[in-house]
């Protein structure tokens, strides 16, 4: 009878072949998408630079903003499509019968849509933005400022992407149809539910500090980024309630940075193992 061997669970040569199949099998789609994004970027940069030459107003960090959109929205959409071949009639049969372990198939999709996509899009975007800048300099004699892929903001954004995309990866195997929309809706419902529970809990725990007795005049913060409530000020700095809030915040950070992604990866792997054609 069968025995689960290490070699049967993970074999580097087989894993490499699965990754190659995942990437090379869709190379035409990848090239077409890259061409469309590069074309869109060059056109947008050209129009923005043209507008700047007329109005003399300067757009701040044009490329940084564009890259964030590409990283998050593009990455989430690509991730949502990762396991569609395992859920689509016809294609699922070929994918599930491919001689590779569930772990190898999962790891291949995870790496290609997380680190692979983040780094690939960064290199591609840096090159495409350099071309766009070159065009602007040629036509207008000035540009929008080269995209710098080595800033802390870019890498922080990639870090957050790696965490958030794990949820879309789970959604990709979980939802058979329109996984991107369904995952986004699930996140929204989850966020609303969490917000409601936390609000109710906060009112229960900190009722004395959130009423008319709170120092309201110093708790509303308005600055260049919009407005927000300074809960620390509301609860009174250094108070036990403020310390309690800090614990909530820390727990939230641990859940987001330490637990969310591994939990989503585990859920994805288990779901892939039990997927039927």
């Amino acid at each position, binding site marked *: *009878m069968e025995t689960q061997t290490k070699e049967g669970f993970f074999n580097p040569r*087989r894993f490499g*072949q699965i990754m190659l*199949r995942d990437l*090379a*099998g869709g190379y035409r789609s990848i090239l077409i998408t890259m061409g469309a994004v590069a074309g869109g970027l060059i056109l947008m940069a050209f129009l923005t630079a043209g507008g700047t030459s007329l109005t003399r107003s300067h757009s701040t960090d044009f490329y940084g903003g564009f890259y964030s959109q590409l990283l998050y929205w593009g990455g989430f959409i690509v991730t949502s499509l990762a396991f569609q071949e395992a859920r689509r009639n016809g294609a699922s*049969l070929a994918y599930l019968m491919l*001689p590779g372990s569930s772990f190898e198939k999962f790891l291949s999709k995870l790496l290609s849509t997380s680190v692979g996509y983040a780094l690939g899009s960064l290199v591609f975007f840096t090159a495409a933005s350099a071309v766009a800048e070159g065009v602007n300099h040629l036509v207008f004699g000035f540009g929008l400022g080269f995209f710098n892929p080595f800033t802390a903001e870019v890498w922080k954004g990639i870090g957050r992407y790696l965490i958030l995309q794990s949820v879309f990866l789970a959604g990709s195997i979980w939802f058979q149809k329109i996984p991107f929309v369904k995952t986004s809706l699930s996140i929204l419902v989850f966020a609303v539910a969490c917000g409601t529970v936390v609000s109710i809990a906060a009112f229960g725990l900190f009722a004395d500090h959130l009423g008319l007795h709170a120092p309201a005049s110093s708790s509303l913060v308005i600055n260049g980024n919009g407005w927000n409530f300074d809960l620390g000020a509301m609860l009174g700095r250094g108070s036990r309630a403020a310390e309690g809030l800090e614990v909530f915040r820390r727990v939230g950070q641990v859940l987001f940075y330490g637990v969310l992604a591994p939990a989503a990866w585990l859920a994805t792997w288990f779901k892939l193992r*039990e997927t039927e054609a």
Partner: protein
Amino acid sequence: MIEIKDMSFGYKKKLFSELNLSLQPGNIYGLLGKNGAGKTTLLKLICGLRFPQGGQCSVLGFQPAHRPVHLLEQICFIAEEIHVPAISPDLYEKLYAPFYPRFDHEMFVGHLREFELDTTKRLTEMSYGQKKKFMVSFGLASRCRLVLLDEPTNGMDIPSKSQFRRLLARSLGEDKIILISTHQVRDMENLIDPIIVLDGGRIVFQQDMETASRRLTVTMEREEPADALWAEKTLGGWVAVRENTGSQESRIDLEVLFNTVINSTERVQALFGAPQGKETTHGNAN
């Protein structure tokens, strides 16, 4: 090699209940059944694409529901609906052949040549029949020990069907099981043997053609026979199937055999014995 014991499975309704089946290497089995009998589902259960809800299913010593790699690399399953990536045949071979340890490049090229396939086209540009021929060529060249084919001749033109039969007969080895699910019994005549008939969630017949020809006799008659196991009207009279009481083998075609089994299950089972030594739930009609 394939042992199914008391396996149950269903979707909203129960499809199989206590299904038993044993398949041995060195045979090309034909799996026949009416629409919705569960032929494709049975193939999927055998290769781990569906999970049994009860009982046991063992394939080449593995439990297919776990989809272990060492089992997957020994199974070739070609479904009725073919899905192919938008790549060339050459790239397909480069990407997929390394997964099959016994893959034979020369054999693959030979099959493609025999099917007269244009290998310069991308797979998605091929017709349904061409895609099927490509997948059959690849599947047989992988030299898997278990080959599962679901309606393999659908979409193939007439010359391709005989080429297909030739390739399949040539690729059968002593360690290999080939299981073909089909409605196109005429395409498979003289190829599939033994025959398995699936009906009402059970295997109601599993015999080789030699035994079937020894136990049954087929005659052409002018009038509708009253004592036959099965009779069907044809041009110029009736084809009647009866128990063969003589010593001579009678040639029985698959379509007539299938109709006899489906329409006179109890009487046929009384004659041959119930498959896997299991009595049917119905009484004997005789």
